[in-house]
Each structure stands twice: as structure tokens, then as C-alpha cells.
């Protein structure tokens, strides 16, 4: 038996329900389903889906390889461009990327299921632990990668392939970054993020040092001194604060911590959740927190966003997913004050907003939603300790198209970079491209081989 008691409690559901609630959101395609789905691909010339993919995977080719019974070849096509193609297949908002560009939308408003097909092929290869890459002859160069998230792993892998030795530093106990800590549990079941890290690292030549934080255990200057090049894939480690009355009351929590805790929990029953939950924000983090609160047995979950539906960063699909799980999404409401009782959250006062001449303005009208837990999902921030003189702008690292920063031999990629897209797949592309850039610099500086008669 579960419980509907007020307060923030674990075990709200009967034990068996957790497993089904947190099962794979999109179950994998079996072989027959994959063949049927792959048959729908038209093998477009200069395909729009490929252009829409931040990592430029040759989508028509990998789908054709599936359709001809060659999932291993298909996986190689994917990994050639995106070594984290397995996770991207699970978490990419394909409805706004490749699948949005699919020409099938024009014909019948139903794209080829590119994401699920990508998962099919990568699952086959990873299940067989099929390794496609061998390291080039060792170059003698050493590169430090800071952050074992999507950008860092992609960079490390590509550098290792090129024959360079890589040391990856990560502040967390486990590698994977957002893939391990920042994604809803139902999108990455069966410890997939760690399996993928192992798969990526099996290329060899990559040493990972977990529990090592930039600015605490070492500085960028230290790395610059010890290594031939440095890649920064730091992500966004901070969270924005509300700066409101009552923010310190018990029960006001960061959505990212809640999401991380859920991912690290085996049973999910041990993760406490309120009976009435309010989530503040309009992005994927807000949706992930709200949906999972509901799946944990919260009676009432409300997302409050200070702008309209059309302004939400969460995709249409994610919004529909939340609605289907019973989450209420309310727009044009901004938090004003958190009501507390005995040091605990009792509710939240919100103020209606409107757009006046393009500017968000409070109308003065307020209302209160009773709540015993409030999740903040109003954005993450870059924590830049230990970076020395590295040039920042708008709180992010400035880097060019190849990932070169203001300091020689320091590259950066992923969410920590100005213009980063808050997408796993974009981070992978940036890490990969920075690795290529580093490799080019090494190659240009390498002493030419002397011909011996």
C-alpha cells in the first residue's frame, strides 16, 4: 500500500508500481519493427534530416543499413559522427531536429522514427560490444579533458583515436555528466549511461579521474602546464536562485538535484516527494522533475511558467508527455513569495504576468497554490572557478567554431560555451570538433619526418 499523506515522503506507491512507472519511455524496437520502420525511409538525396542533426549523422545510410540486415554497419555509420549515438537516440528532442526535417512530414505528417532506429542499431552493436575504432600510433601528446559529460567524452574518444593520451577530470563520483545525473530516469534505463561510458572508454588511452573538481583540486593553469592541450567541457554546474521570501524553507529544492537523486536510486521508492508539488520553470528540467514527481506518487503536480506555452523551452512532445502523466501546466504565472509553516513549505504565492510591448510585466493580481514541495527549474548557471584569465562573456566561455578559447592550447565545448545549445547532441558535436581542431594543431606543429636515403 502507498500513502497520500501530506509532507515530503518516500514510498508513496506500492513497490511494484515504481518499476512500471519508470520503465523505458520509448521501448526499443525489435528487429521486425525496425525493418518496418526503416522501410519508410526514402533515402533522400542530401537529406534534410542529416542537415538537421548537430552531429551530421548520415541518417539515410544508417537506416538503409538497418533495412538490409546490417545493424552493425549502421551503428558504425552513427558512431563515426557521434560516439554517444546510443544516448542521443534516447534523449535527443528528435521532434525538433531530424524527425522534424523528415520529408515524410510533408507527405503524411508522420516522420521516419529516426531516433528509435538509431537506438536499435547502436543497441545491437553495444550489446555485442562491437568496437569499430583502433588507436592511431601513439603521438606522445597528452591532453587534459575537464568534465566527463557528453562534450568531454566525445572529445576524449576522438583524441584517443588520433593517438593522443587523454586524462579526463570530473568532479562527480561517476562519469557521464548530464547523461548520468541530468536525464529523467525513464529515458535512460538499465544503467545505460555507465554502459555507454565504458563503451566509449574501451578505445583505450583515456584515464578518468573522478572526484577531481576544477578550482578546488587543480586550476586551468596547472593543466596548461602539464598537458599539450586542454579541453573544457564543464557544463553548467550551478543553479539559478529565486531570490524570494521563503526560499530557504524546507521543501524548496533544486530540480536538478531531484533528477540526479532519482537516477542514482535503484528502487525510486526511497526518493521522497511531496503530496502537492509545484515546479517553477518551462524547460526540459521542469518537465523531467514534474513528470517524475507524478510518477513517484505526488497527488498534484503543477508546472508554473512565467510566459506562454509558445515560449516554453520544453518541446511540444515533452509538454504532451507531462499532460499525459497528469501534470498541470499553467502559464503566465511568476513566483512572488513562498509561504511557510513551521519552517516548511506550505504553498506558493504567484503573480499573473503579461507581455507589454514585448516586456514581461506583472499584472498585480496574485493567487496561492498550496504545496508541500517546490522545485526550482529556472535555469542553470556556469561556475567558473579556477579558470584564471580565460575570457568569459555573459557568464559563459568564449570559443570560436572549432572550440578555441582566448588561451592558446585551451579548447571548450558544450553548455559551458557561449552559444551552447543545452543539447546532448550539440555538446557531442562540439567536443568532437574541438578534438579535431586540437589534432590539427598538433599535426601542424609536429616535426616533419625526415627522409632517410
Amino acid at each position: 500500500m502507498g500513502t497520500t499523506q501530506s509532507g515530503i515522503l518516500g514510498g508513496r506507491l506500492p513497490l511494484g508500481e515504481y518499476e512500471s512507472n519508470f520503465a523505458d519511455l520509448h521501448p526499443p524496437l525489435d528487429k521486425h519493427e525496425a525493418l518496418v520502420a526503416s522501410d519508410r525511409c526514402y533515402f533522400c538525396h542530401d537529406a534534410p534530416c542529416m542537415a538537421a542533426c548537430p552531429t551530421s549523422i548520415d541518417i539515410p545510410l544508417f537506416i538503409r543499413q538497418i533495412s538490409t540486415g546490417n545493424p552493425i554497419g549502421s551503428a558504425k555509420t552513427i558512431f563515426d559522427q557521434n560516439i554517444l549515438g546510443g544516448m542521443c537516440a534516447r534523449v535527443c528532442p528528435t521532434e525538433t531536429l531530424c524527425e522534424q526535417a523528415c520529408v515524410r512530414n510533408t507527405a503524411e505528417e508522420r516522420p521516419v522514427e529516426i531516433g528509435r532506429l538509431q537506438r536499435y542499431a547502436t543497441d545491437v552493436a553495444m550489446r555485442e560490444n562491437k568496437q569499430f575504432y583502433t588507436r592511431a600510433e601513439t603521438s606522445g601528446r597528452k591532453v587534459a579533458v575537464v568534465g566527463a559529460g557528453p562534450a568531454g567524452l566525445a572529445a576524449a574518444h576522438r583524441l584517443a583515436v588520433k593517438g593522443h593520451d587523454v586524462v579526463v577530470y570530473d568532479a562527480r563520483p561517476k562519469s557521464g555528466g548530464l547523461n548520468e545525473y541530468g536525464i529523467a530516469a525513464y529515458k535512460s534505463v538499465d544503467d545505460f549511461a555507465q554502459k555507454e561510458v565504458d563503451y566509449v572508454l574501451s578505445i583505450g588511452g583515456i584515464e578518468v579521474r573522478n572526484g577531481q573538481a576544477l578550482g578546488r583540486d587543480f586550476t586551468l593553469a596547472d593543466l596548461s602546464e602539464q598537458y599539450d592541450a586542454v579541453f573544457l567541457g564543464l557544463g553548467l554546474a550551478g543553479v539559478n536562485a529565486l531570490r524570494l521570501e521563503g526560499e530557504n524553507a524546507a521543501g524548496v529544492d533544486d530540480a536538478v538535484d531531484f533528477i540526479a537523486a532519482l537516477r542514482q536510486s535503484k528502487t525510486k521508492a526511497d526518493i521522497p516527494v511531496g503530496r502537492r508539488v509545484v515546479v517553477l520553470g518551462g524547460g526540459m528540467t521542469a518537465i523531467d522533475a514534474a513528470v517524475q514527481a507524478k510518477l513517484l506518487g505526488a497527488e498534484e503536480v503543477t508546472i508554473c511558467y512565467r510566459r506562454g506555452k509558445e515560449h516554453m523551452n520544453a518541446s511540444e512532445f515533452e509538454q504532451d508527455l507531462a499532460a499525459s502523466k497528469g501534470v498541470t501546466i499553467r502559464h503566465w504565472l511568476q513566483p512572488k513569495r513562498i509561504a511557510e509553516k513551521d519552517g516548511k513549505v506550505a504553498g506558493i504565492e504567484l503573480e499573473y504576468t503579461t507581455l507589454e510591448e514585448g516586456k514581461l510585466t506583472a499584472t498585480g493580481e496574485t493567487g496561492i497554490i498550496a504545496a508541500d514541495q517546490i522545485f526550482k527549474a529556472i535555469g542553470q548557471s556556469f561556475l567558473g572557478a579556477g579558470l584564471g584569465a580565460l575570457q568569459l562573456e555573459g557568464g559563459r566561455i568564449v570559443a570560436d567554431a572549432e572550440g578555441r578559447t582566448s588561451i592558446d592550447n585551451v579548447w571548450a565545448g558544450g553548455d559551458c560555451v557561449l552559444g551552447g545549445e543545452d543539447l546532448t547532441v550539440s555538446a557531442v558535436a562540439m567536443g568532437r570538433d574541438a578534438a579535431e581542431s586540437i589534432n590539427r594543431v598538433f599535426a601542424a606543429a609536429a616535426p616533419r619526418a625526415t627522409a632517410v636515403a
Partner: protein
Amino acid sequence: MADLRNNFVGIKSPNPFWLASAPPTDKAYNVERAFKAGWGGVVWKTLGEEGPPVVNVNGPRYGAIWGADRRLLGLNNIELITDRDLYVNLREMKQVKMNWPDRALIASIMVPCEEEAWKAILPLVEETGADGIELNFGCPHGMSERGMGAAVGQVPEYIEMVVRWCKQYTRMPVITKLTPNITDIRKPARAAKAGGTDAVSLINTINSIVSVDLDNFAPNPAVGGKGTHGGYCGPAVKPIALNMVAEIARDPETYGLPISGIGGITTWRDAAEFLALGAGNVQVCTAAMTYGFKIVQEMISGLSDWMDAKGHRNLDDITGRAVPNVTDWQYLNLNYIAKAKIDQDACIKCGRCHIACEDTSHQAITQFVNGVRHFEVMEDECVGCNLCVNVCPVENCITMEELPAGTLDQRTGKPVDPNYANWTTHPNNPMARQAAE
């Protein structure tokens, strides 16, 4: 309501859809089910001579190729003629014919190429009340190794001889079933006619190996690690069958000889096409073996509704209607000029027309116009080949538009000549002759 009643060489059936001689017509149980489902007639699975029946392999008898979603496109088989006792078959045929007097029941027969053998079996078949016989000169495997089936069908002299015996020893109409495993289908048809056949039916199955098992390096279907060629049928063979039917229908020597069309007929539309090319009725097998007997309901209603929509009252209104439009290449009008046209509203921008034309044809379709992805036909390069129409995944998105006489063909820089002119009169043809006055 269109009248679908069929009278084929005097054999009447309520509709032109017969089941071909094959596994679905091997015994009373199946045939009763077929008639209940609405089939107009059946050609009973081929009877052999009296005595111990043939035996079949006990491993796989069928192989296949598939299209999208495992839709069966082609089937092959290595099954032989009926492996049941002759008298069991005859008894059942008699009973079924009594139960279904309005349906056509034809006996397919294959016995050794000896007069006595045919003389012996024909009275037995006649006694069942069967409406006619079909001579199996087509079976391409097993029986042909024993001098029967296709081994007869590939020698026009044998065909003529056997048909003559049959016409001599039975009053039943004789339908001669032809094998496609021959260079010129008109030769066996002419021979059958010379022997006095009432009709021909075609095509029988085509020699084939459907696939090779790449783990065991054996053809499919493999029986104990070895395979043999089978008879190919199903939707994939329809174009071959249509051509062979048309060849016989338009051959002056066999013109007017009734044809029962066979080969990949799966829908009413397929059937209508065979009728238009000169078939008096059609026979179906693979479609039934894929989907069951119920598909005849779609065939009947589809044919009837199409005939109603087009004002065709009965089968005679459509049979052979396309035959006058089948001609030799040399008579095609070289002054007919068409250009592809892409409907930009229907275009989904897959780019297949462009890459097909660019890589393999005439470089006549754009990919970008003013830097925007845009597929458009360049009339000054287009030869009107129709490849883009065929590769486009959207029906009617690309169409071939005839250039009216007098308009400028941008490719040649000359106006379209209104006069019909073919290769026989073309100046580049060393054999050119003056057009007949």
C-alpha cells in the same frame, strides 16, 4: 451493375476469377471453401496417370522474396502434381461439381507423352462432369525431368501432338497451359492452335532460385542442405505474364484464340489489365496462398465497381481492348515529345528525382534554385524518359506532359512536328523506307 458472368470457350462461371491448378485446388475440402468464398471456378490440381502417385519432398517446398513490411512479392515452389490417388481426386471432383453446378471445374492433366496414356485418362475425367481440361505443359521442376510438364511445353511439336490426341479422345474443351521458360511464347501457342486447342492459359511458373542462404551457401528453399530451381510466381511475375499474353493476343497466327490469363494477379486491377490485353478470364494462385480465399471478394467488387464507373457492361466490353495499342518499338511515334513536370505543392523535397537524373540520366533536374532546395525540371535537358516519375515516392507529383504540336522543344530547339513519324522512315535508319501512301 456490371455483368461479370464469364463464358470461356463455353465454360460458364459467375465471374472470371478462377483458382489456378495448384495446392489450393488439390482436394474437395479446399475447393468447397473456395466456392463458398465466391471463386467462379477452379482448375483442379494436376492429375497424373493411374498407379502409385508422385511423392513430394518432406522439407520446405516454398521460397519467397519480400518487399516493405514483408509483403510477399514473389513465391517459388518445388511441389509436384497431386500426390493423391487418381480415383480419390476423380471422386471428389465429381461430388464437388454436383454440389456447385454453376461453378467452373476444370481438370488439369499431366501424363506421359504417349497417346495411350492420354487416351486412358480422358474418359475417367470426362465421367466426373468436369467442364473442361487443362493440359499442364508448364510445370518446370521434377515432372519436366521425367519428360512431362515443361519438357513438353518447350517443344511445339509435342504440344501439337498431345493437343490433337486430347481433341480426338474427349468432347471436353481443351485449354493448353504454356510455360514461360521458352524464348518465344508465340511458338507453343501456335502449335497448340494447330493441334486444335480451344484456348491457351499462361503463364505457368518461371524457373527460379529465390535466394541463397549465405550461412550455408545453399539455395532456398533447401532440403537437407541442397536446393533446386523452383517455379516462380506472385506479383513479381505479372509484367512478364502480361507481355506474353499480349504477344499471343496480337500475333496474327493466334489472333482470337481464347486466353486464360495467369501470373501474379493479386487485385481486381491486375485482373482488368490481363483482360484488357486479351485474356477471356484469369486464374489466381499466389494471392490466395498469401491471403486466403476471401481476396476474391475484393477482386469481384473492384472489377465490378470500375466497370460501372467506366460504363463497361460486361467482360466482352473490356477483353482485348488494349491489344490494338500494343505495337513494336519501330512503330512508336518519334515526334511525340513529353517533358517531366514537378508539382511543387506535392513535392516533399526528398531529392530522389534529382539524384536519379543527375547520377544516372540526363542532368535535367535542379537541386537548388537561388540557393534554396528546389527540384525543377530543366526542359532544355529533359528527354522525357520518365525515370523521375518512377522513382518519386509521391504519386502524381511528377507527371509527363505532352508538348503540343508547334511548341518549341527547348532541348532540340525545334518546334514539335505534328506528323506521326517512326523509325521505319527515320533518316538515321539505314533500312528506312518511304512511308506507305
